[in-house]
């Protein structure tokens, strides 16, 4: 790990200001992904801005009848929350399919969206990787790529990237995509919202950019729309062992039924 400075943010505005004035700094929440990557020298922030004391660990009702998950809610507290598990059981199920009890107690909802790929080469600074080191090449395309993307990698597929075949490893995000959640962010230019499907990017020619959050923006919350598809839903995760492993393939599916007919259907794929 390289040396870095540490600041404890005491307000959302000052956290964003600190980040905007030092773009090589990073926010730290649960630390479960960032510290891991710093130990491998993949992430090399000059400063960590600890956001854990910000008042973003709440779940509140939205005006539209949905729920707002504060960015600092832990994955465990979100999954076991009475409202979430009753109204959005698909989300609870997806979160509980990920990581371990210890990690879910640490990991935050904001950090879960921002976690980076588990591609082995991305983690190994001795190998070429366009996501880590733009222009260095992709070791996975002709290497070990069992955990990598299946869809969108064939020649001729629209939006295919010849530079990176990594996936986003989150389980929670697959459910959030199916539920059509909205990410709330704040930055020096004020607040804005990002529809979930527009949050994570395809690799294209710039695989080092994972998402559409700007460097100086902070995720404050994730909004769940009123309809939680709590009657007909399933999260299926296939992996090498039945617990504590990342998905090889995962599916979040949800149906809205009326008089035996499907009136709305959602399917999101992950892993």
């Amino acid at each position, binding site marked *: 790990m390289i040396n870095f400075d540490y600041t404890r943010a005491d307000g959302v505005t000052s956290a964003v200001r600190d980040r905007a004035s030092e773009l090589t700094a990073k926010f730290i929440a649960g630390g479960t992904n960032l510290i891991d990557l710093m130990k491998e020298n993949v992430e090399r922030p000059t400063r*960590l801005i600890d956001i854990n004391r910000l008042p973003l660990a709440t779940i509140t009702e939205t005006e539209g009848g949905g729920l707002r998950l504060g960015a600092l809610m832990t994955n465990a507290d979100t999954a076991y929350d009475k409202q979430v598990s009753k109204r959005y059981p698909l989300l609870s199920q997806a979160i509980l399919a990920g990581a371990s009890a210890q990690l879910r107690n640490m990991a935050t909802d904001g950090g879960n969206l921002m976690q980076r790929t588990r591609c082995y080469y991305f983690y190994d600074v001795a190998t070429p990787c366009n996501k880590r080191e733009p222009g260095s090449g992709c070791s996975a395309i002709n290497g070990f790529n069992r955990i990598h993307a299946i869809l969108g990698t064939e020649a001729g597929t629209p939006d295919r990237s010849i530079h990176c075949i990594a996936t986003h490893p989150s389980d929670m995000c697959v459910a959030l995509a199916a539920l059509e959640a909205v990410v709330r962010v704040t930055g020096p230019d004020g607040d804005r919202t990002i529809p979930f499907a527009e949050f994570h990017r395809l690799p294209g020619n710039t695989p080092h950019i994972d998402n559409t959050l700007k460097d100086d923006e902070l995720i404050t919350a994730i909004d769940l729309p009123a309809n939680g598809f709590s009657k007909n839903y399933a999260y299926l995760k296939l992996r090498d062992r039945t617990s504590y492993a990342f998905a090889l393939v995962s599916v979040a599916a949800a149906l809205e039924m009326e008089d035996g007919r499907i009136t709305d259907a959602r399917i999101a794929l992950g892993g």
Partner: protein
Amino acid sequence: MTLTDESPPMVNQAPSVPATQTVTLTVNGTAVELQLAPWTSLLDALREYMQLTGTKKGCDHGQCGACTVLVNGKRINSCLTLAIMQEGNSITTIEGLAQPEGLLPIQQAFIDHDAFQCGYCTPGQICSAVGLMNEGHAKTTDDIRELMSGNICRCGAYTNIVDAIQAVMHPQPDKL
């Protein structure tokens, strides 16, 4: 040598020695002041600076659970958090579990059920089991297995670990 605008910048390019700062940790009920570099993990602070070597380092990457401790009653992996981030929290390690009257029931149950061989994973298993019981989400044997999956046992004492936890939880037999 005089410095002019043309002089190469006098930036120290060599890896700098991390400056330490005072970090106050509350471990097993006692507040301790330590001088730590910001990069010191909670695990390293416990083992290297407080001589609390009961907490083990297996993988240092969140993949094995040997480093499990309780923070405000909840189990976490101490290898993936920085000591400085834990100021103000109440940390409990395996050394802090036993009471003056004796071992906790779960500790005794690990002995009675032969729930270890080499013992390297055991402090993490026991802290994790305490966390599991505090959380209260395990209702069945399968729940115990699933919610203990963050603790790897290289010796494969899993079945006896589940037996030990089950014996302390006194779950209703019909659910098991």
